[in-house]
């Protein structure tokens, strides 16, 4: 393992075993998260991004299961760990924020206690009063106004934005080395989204942690990510540094995603959409998984999919006919 990386995923496969067949939701994914950087994992709903991070945390739900692959965190292999050993790392060195702040907090427990719990699990010597003080500090840090009052609130008494801040506080309180954020802003208003993203970036700058950010929104990626992975139908189809990806988009799918971001001052043309939907993973096309939706597909694309190839330094793409053109203004 490269010790500049906090997390290295190699050949991860997580499948759903359903009655209708095996669904390869994550099918051979390699991801590196360098220390201190924010890495984006982008794709449409159902492409396997959530499953990827759930595999790291040991949260894959039945009938899903991690089939194979290595997940190396800070020099430790996670994939073979027993549940109890994994739980010692979870919440302490790796923590996670979920998509739905509405349902991700226990409705019958005060939020202060929920955050405090995260701290006290991993530091058994800490007293309740000390823990409460720390919770208050972290509440303040993540921008929760009147922290001492909020401690005593139940989740339903807080707004969505505040709840997500509580989630972030809970994730941050043990000063993790890696924060996994699974679409943390999807359920929030745009203004709140910007605040939350800024907060995450600030926390990264302050603590030097790494962030693995899952999103379907390339706009979010452009805003805060250093490096991007684009995922499609269970596989990485393109990966590059953020600027490189935006400037030299090589995969038609990434291009489609970029074109479908509405831009102020853009031409009055119709907004681009990618035709079709994510393919049924039970019946993937024989060749490239994207070929049926791809405007550039040729006969060869239907026969065989490409491998991930490096086309420029640090820029890999899985396409036998990558786009070379500059993004049109």
């Amino acid at each position, binding site marked *: 393992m490269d010790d500049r990386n906090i997390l290295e995923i190699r050949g991860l496969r997580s499948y759903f075993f359903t009655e209708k067949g095996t669904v390869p939701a994550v099918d051979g994914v390699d991801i590196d998260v360098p220390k201190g950087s924010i890495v984006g994992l982008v794709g449409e709903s159902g492409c396997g991004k959530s499953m990827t991070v759930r595999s790291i*945390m*040991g*949260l894959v*739900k039945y009938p899903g299961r991690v089939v194979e692959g290595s997940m190396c965190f800070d020099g430790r292999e996670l994939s073979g760990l027993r*549940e*109890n050993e994994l*739980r*010692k*790392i*979870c*919440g*302490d060195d790796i*923590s*996670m924020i*979920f998509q*739905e702040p509405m*349902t*991700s*907090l*226990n*409705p*019958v*427990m005060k939020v202060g206690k*929920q955050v405090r*719990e*995260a701290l006290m*699990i*991993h530091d058994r010597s800490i007293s309740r009063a000390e823990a409460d003080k720390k919770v208050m500090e972290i509440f303040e840090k993540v921008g929760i106004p009147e922290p001492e009052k909020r401690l005593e609130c*139940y989740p*339903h*008494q807080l707004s969505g934005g505040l709840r997500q801040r509580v*989630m972030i506080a*809970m994730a941050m309180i043990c000063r993790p080395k890696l924060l996994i954020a699974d679409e943390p802003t999807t359920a929030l208003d745009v203004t709140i989204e910007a605040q939350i993203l800024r907060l995450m970036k600030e926390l990264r700058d302050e603590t030097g942690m790494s962030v693995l950010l899952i999103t379907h929104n390339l706009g979010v990626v452009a805003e805060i990510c250093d490096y991007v992975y684009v995922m499609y139908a269970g596989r990485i189809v393109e990966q590059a540094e953020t600027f490189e990806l935006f400037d030299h988009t090589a995969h038609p799918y990434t291009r489609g995603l970029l074109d479908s971001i509405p831009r102020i001052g853009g031409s009055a043309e119709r907004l681009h959409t990618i035709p079709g939907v994510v393919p049924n993973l039970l019946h993937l096309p024989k060749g490239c998984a994207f070929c049926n939706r791809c405007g550039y597909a040729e006969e060869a694309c239907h026969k065989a999919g490409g491998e991930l190839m490096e086309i420029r330094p640090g820029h890999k793409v899985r396409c036998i006919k990558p786009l070379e053109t500059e993004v049109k203004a």
Partner: protein
Amino acid sequence: MKYFLKRVIGTIPVLLGVVLLIFIMLRIIPGSPVLVMLGEHYDQETIERLTELMGLDQPLLVQFFDYVKGALMGDLGVSYRYQRPVADMIMDALPYTVKLAVMAALFAWVMGLVSGIIAAVNNNNFIDRLFMGVSLLGVSMPIFMTSLVLQYIFSFKLGILPMTEDGSMVSMILPAIALGWNSAGSVARMTRSSLIEVMQADYIDTAKAKGLLRGAVIMKHALRNSLLPVVTMMALQLSSMLSGAVITESVFAIPGIGRLATEAISNRDMPVLQGTVLFTTVIVIAGNLLADMLYSVLDPRIRKGE
């Protein structure tokens, strides 16, 4: 508190409805109750005198309000058969039924919750199936069957527990188990399915991601949430438990309220039947209120009254 007050007031129309329903149903019988009382020997004058005395010559509506007025003051009429105030008869029978129901409920809830939780955490393996099979058996056995089987085994074959009620606590054990067996099955099934559903919730993932171990996830986060529907169901169980008490009291010869009701039917003793049905219904409604209160303690979302 305001929420609770609202709930209490909300039960008033239901209570009035129950009184009205029972009242009307017991009074549309052909034939005057006076005739039932007098039996074979009567003359016209006595009938008229008694009818007037009992207020049966009044319009039904007047009779109804008189009854409600009386009931509010604890007067449920006088038994045709025994010439005793129904309220007194109920008060005499009440301790037996309360003892029976409390013991049965304790048995049902403890057994039901424990086996429900055990089944849920052993999801789908042998232990789960065993517990759920027994629970379903519990739900499917008629109460009189449980009673008879228990009587046959423990009183007749083994001779370790009394056959019928004799005033001791020990003699209540068999009836309480017979009565609670059924509810224990329902509570266990509900607890299991509720706990399994809650374990799928997002906040359970959060708790795991925090680093809580599985046991702690269940005890600290899942259990309380999964108890919410179980509490409601327990209150509903009160109603079926009181139905069941009628049968266990009959099998084990317990002079409780259910027994009063069955006897009232064979004696054609309308005021007693009316009184016992009303009384048990009030208990059921009160039980539901209590469950609501408990629910609001367990679930802060309701406590605030939204």
